[in-house]
């Protein structure tokens, strides 16, 4: 615990330091070094606990209404803490370099300081074990990330995004207020341990509690339909902030839900069904909407919605496992959910970093204006490609490992003899999402990096510096490592899954003995795949070395005067798929004689949230005339109030 706290302190020191140190280079170096060092230090206890050490817990007497402050690291905290620190440290290095380029330099101090604060409170969110401390960390996380989103507040879009974000997140926090209020009713104090003990006292079997937690944490996690703040906020923030938000911040919603499920004990089955259904919905709609986007950061943001959906499918499965009494299912489901959370943190942060590098070099986020960047930014392209392969969940990278684990659970559910087998229906949904994700990242990677430049913006692009590349490569390496060595990684996650499900260690061991050989074979499969590819590549090289190899223009099917403008655009690429799912996509097409162009709108934001707010506003405006400035009416209100009070006086019991 000392290590953890001193690590956080070091991170906070860096926040203070950037505000004090004047020299730019020293400041940035100091900041990056301290954040990385602090993260490393703070991650030691997390590693220890994942390695099997006992959970740590510390309690400070606060005397505040709302009880003591409790900080603890258990396996669930540890794994989220690691994600926070790894992605946080990588993005700190990347972020200072990112902010130094271009017009944002003068904002970099404030952004760096806020960033360090954000990482600190994120670490606190996952370790807080009492309500008030948790809520404080939770809201500080929202506030500091909001300030970061607002970094480029001169732009109208950014302000709008920030506004939507802060409203959404504050609404979520208020729901959590009520949730904890309900939960604490009758508890000994406000520590999580007491809440767990208070479960039997929950009203209506904890149903309201669950729904509030789902909505409150879901607002942060951003599953459909609570995702509406997510794409604009991600597009508006500086890229390293988008990376942290998508990689970690929204996962705090997942953490919260898992924590609630863990503390609330054996859940009723409908919790699981709800989570599973929402997950399936998010997985498909998220990726479908991503497909309609041409702003790379919005596209990535919608993919976060999809991945949250996948995680929730795992969670829902875990909950069903507990509810129907299938420990194996519960462990697999929760384990897969947490593993996918970590994986997504790694590859989504990576993708945002690469996208940010491209944005810095081209000055645009619109992929329709990119193209041909693979030659100009080869390392960034490689990193983006690794991220893409990881996120579409194909072997041999980490995305496959977690999706495979989710499928394990879903298929296993399929041959249970009770209602849990219906969960199997989520498998084809997940498969559809996977297929769509493939299409989407083929579009993104292809249109951004391949072909010819589609405008003059990519022409001047060149590779970014080491400070922005090394963090990308580090995360890419992590993605590859988990993909190739699943047998080393999956085990601890099953134990975490068992912790969440409240199962015995023996159950986790049983699950592990079932999964372990398969995981080894997954590794085998991945390695063999790479070896076979290498062998064929060698053979091809061998053959081609003796033949004539020459370059020429792309075959234009007989048409000689092709131009880069004739390349297939992202809009056209996505059009047939979007046409299949027409009413769900919210896409608007603009056809002209020489152009085809589509824009993806957010159905929830544009069709539900905004109109709803407009309606509230209209009704509020309708009340305005009651305060039209005439004193006589004001006095009449006083009289009316007195009359009502007197009426109450007469009729009250």
């Amino acid at each position, binding site marked *: 615990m000392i290590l953890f706290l001193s690590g956080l302190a070091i991170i906070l020191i860096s926040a203070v330091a950037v505000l004090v140190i004047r020299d730019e280079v020293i400041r940035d170096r100091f900041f990056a070094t301290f954040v990385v060092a602090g993260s490393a230090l703070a991650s030691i206890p997390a590693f220890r606990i994942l390695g099997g050490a006992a959970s740590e817990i510390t309690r400070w007497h606060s005397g505040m209404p709302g009880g003591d402050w409790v900080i603890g690291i258990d396996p669930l905290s540890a794994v989220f803490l690691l994600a926070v620190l790894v992605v946080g440290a990588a993005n700190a290095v990347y972020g200072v370099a990112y902010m130094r380029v271009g017009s944002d330099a003068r904002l970099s101090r404030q952004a760096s300081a806020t960033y360090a604060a954000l990482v600190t409170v994120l670490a606190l969110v996952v370790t807080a074990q009492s309500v*008030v401390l948790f809520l404080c960390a939770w809201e500080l996380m929202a506030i500091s990330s909001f300030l970061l989103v607002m970094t480029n507040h001169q732009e109208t879009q950014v*302000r709008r995004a920030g506004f939507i974000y802060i409203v959404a997140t504050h609404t979520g926090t*208020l729901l959590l*207020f*009520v949730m904890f*209020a309900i939960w604490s009713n009758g508890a000994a104090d406000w520590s999580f341990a007491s809440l767990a003990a208070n479960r039997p006292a929950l009203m209506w079997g904890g149903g309201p509690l669950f729904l509030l937690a789902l909505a409150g944490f879901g607002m942060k996690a951003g599953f459909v339909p609570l995702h509406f703040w997510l794409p604009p906020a991600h597009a508006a923030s500086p890229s390293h902030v988008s990376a942290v938000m998508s990689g970690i911040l929204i996962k705090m919603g997942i953490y919260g839900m898992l924590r609630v499920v863990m503390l609330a004990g054996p859940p009723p089955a409908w919790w699981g069904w709800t989570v599973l259904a929402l997950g399936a919905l998010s997985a498909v709609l998220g990726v479908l909407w991503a497909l309609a986007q041409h702003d790379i950061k919005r596209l990535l943001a919608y993919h976060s919605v999809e991945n949250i959906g996948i995680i929730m499918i795992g969670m829902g499965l875990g909950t069903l496992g507990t509810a129907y009494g299938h420990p194996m299912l519960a462990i697999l489901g929760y384990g897969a959910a947490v593993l996918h959370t970590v994986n997504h943190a790694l590859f989504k942060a990576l993708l945002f970093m690469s996208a940010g590098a491209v944005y810095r070099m081209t000055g645009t986020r619109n992929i329709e204006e990119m193209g041909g960047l693979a030659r100009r930014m080869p390392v960034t392209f490689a990193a983006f490609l690794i991220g893409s392969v990881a996120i579409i969940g194909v072997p041999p990278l980490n995305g496959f490992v977690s999706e495979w684990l989710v499928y394990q659970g879903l298929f296993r559910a399929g041959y249970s003899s009770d209602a849990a087998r219906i969960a199997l229906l989520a498998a084809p949904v997940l498969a559809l999402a996977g297929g769509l994700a493939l299409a989407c990242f083929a579009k993104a990677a292809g249109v951004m990096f391949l072909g010819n430049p589609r405008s003059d913006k990519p022409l001047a692009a060149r590779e970014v510096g080491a400070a922005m590349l090394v963090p990308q490569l580090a995360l890419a390496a992590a993605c590859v490592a988990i993909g190739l060595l699943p047998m080393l990684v999956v085990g601890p996650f099953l134990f975490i899954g068992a912790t969440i499900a409240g199962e015995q260690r023996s159950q986790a061991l049983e699950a592990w003995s079932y999964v372990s050989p398969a995981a080894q074979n997954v590794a085998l499969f991945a390695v063999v795949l790479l070896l076979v590819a290498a062998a064929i590549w060698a053979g091809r090289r061998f053959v081609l070395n003796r033949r004539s190899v020459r370059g020429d223009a792309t075959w234009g099917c007989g048409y000689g005067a092709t131009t880069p403008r004739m390349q297939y655009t992202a809009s056209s690429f996505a059009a047939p798929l979007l046409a299949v799912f027409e009413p769900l996509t919210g896409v608007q097409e603009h056809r002209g004689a020489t152009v085809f162009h589509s824009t993806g709108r957010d159905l929830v934001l544009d069709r539900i949230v905004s109109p709803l707010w407009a309606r509230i506003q209209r009704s509020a405006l309708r009340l305005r005339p009651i*305060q039209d400035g005439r004193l006589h009416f004001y006095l009449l209100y006083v009289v009316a109030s007195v009359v009502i009070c007197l009426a109450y006086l007469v009729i009250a019991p």
Partner: protein
Amino acid sequence: MLELFLVVVPLAAGALAYALRKARARSALLLTVAMLHTVAVGVLWVHKGSALGGWLMADDLGLLVLSLVSVLFLVVAFYAVGYVRYERPRGGRAFVSCLLVFLSATSLVALSQHLALLWVGMESTTLAIAPLIYSRDDRRSLEAVWKYLVISSVGIALALLAVFLLATAQPVAGASRALLLPDLISGASHLDQWWLRASFVFALAGFGTKMGLAPLHTWKPDTYGEAPSLVGGLMAGALTSCAFLGLARFAQVALAAGLQDFVRPLLIAAGLFSLLVAAAFIIGQADVKRMLAYSSVEHMGLLVLGLGLGGAGAYGSVLHVINNGLVKVMLFLAVGNLVLATGTSVVADMRGMLRTRPVSAWLLVAGLFAVTGSPPFGPFVSEFSIITGAVREHHPWVAGATVLMLTIIFVGIARMILGIVYGEPSTSDDEVSSVAERPSLIIGPLILASMVLLLGLYIPPPLRGAIGRAAASLGGAAP
């Protein structure tokens, strides 16, 4: 005798200030009295006594309000010294004088154990503040002060009726002294129920008008919108707290007499209605000071709601008095700086203040989160307590409605404040952007901001104890 000192010295100083010709001397007097007052209140925390045969005595609830008023006044006085130099409000001498009389009156309210005396203090605050509102010689200012005077006076008259009704409720025979709070509470079982109920109803209407509970709040936006920001702050922070104290005194008696079932639904309904009205009028508000006024209506609603809920709610209510007071004054002062900079309080004309007035703009952002009850600011603890109270006292729907209203209110306030703080400045006036922020105008709100933050994380044990005991006297307990 310290209690008497707290009331009399500011009053005398007020008279003296009117006689002083030099602005500098008046400022010095204002600051001195404010500091003396705070020191004296500090002493009161250690040595409690009573004056005027028990009429003036600082019980826990009163002491809390008194301390709040004293601190707020000190900050405002400090701010006023800079403000008076910068902006020259109408009436020069009267300005400082009225401020001091206001301090005296609020101290009287906070210290009174005698309910009629409390009423006298309450009415005096109304009168002391009126000239302060009328600080500009124009029609809007006049209109504001006129509406304030008429509505407040009617309201306070109703409160007087409540006092008289309470006196009627006391048995003629017996040892209990008339309208003295300790006697009323200890002899609560002998009070005539019917008169007591009538008294409480009128107290709600009367003090509710002074607090600005909907629909008795109509004077509030006009007044806060037109008064100088520091006066608006004093009203929203100190005056409303005193008014709430008045209502709380009646609630103490009613609760002691076992009228829970009568009192609570009324308070809850009043609180919820205020939240509703505040939400409706905060949305799309065009003037930042009027918005703060409706925010004040909201928080008064919360106070009454918490009081009505009892338990953790009442505890939250007491705590919220302090938090709300600090936040409101801080917000008014920060907004005041921006109004000084732009010359308007219309939001459409205030843009990108982060560029031109960074400290005040940051304070406004902090204030946004504080006033909407975001952790880790003080109001979070109190609002959370109130919501907890709603749940624990078996009013889950009240909790739900409250959260809904708080959400809508957050949207309204956030939209406005973010619009003011962020973006490009609307004026490209170099003159405006080059003025450094005056320390005297930002230190005060900075101090308040740090206090608000501190109260969200740590409440000093003596304060905690006092809050606990005060809440207990209102049927509350820490969550």
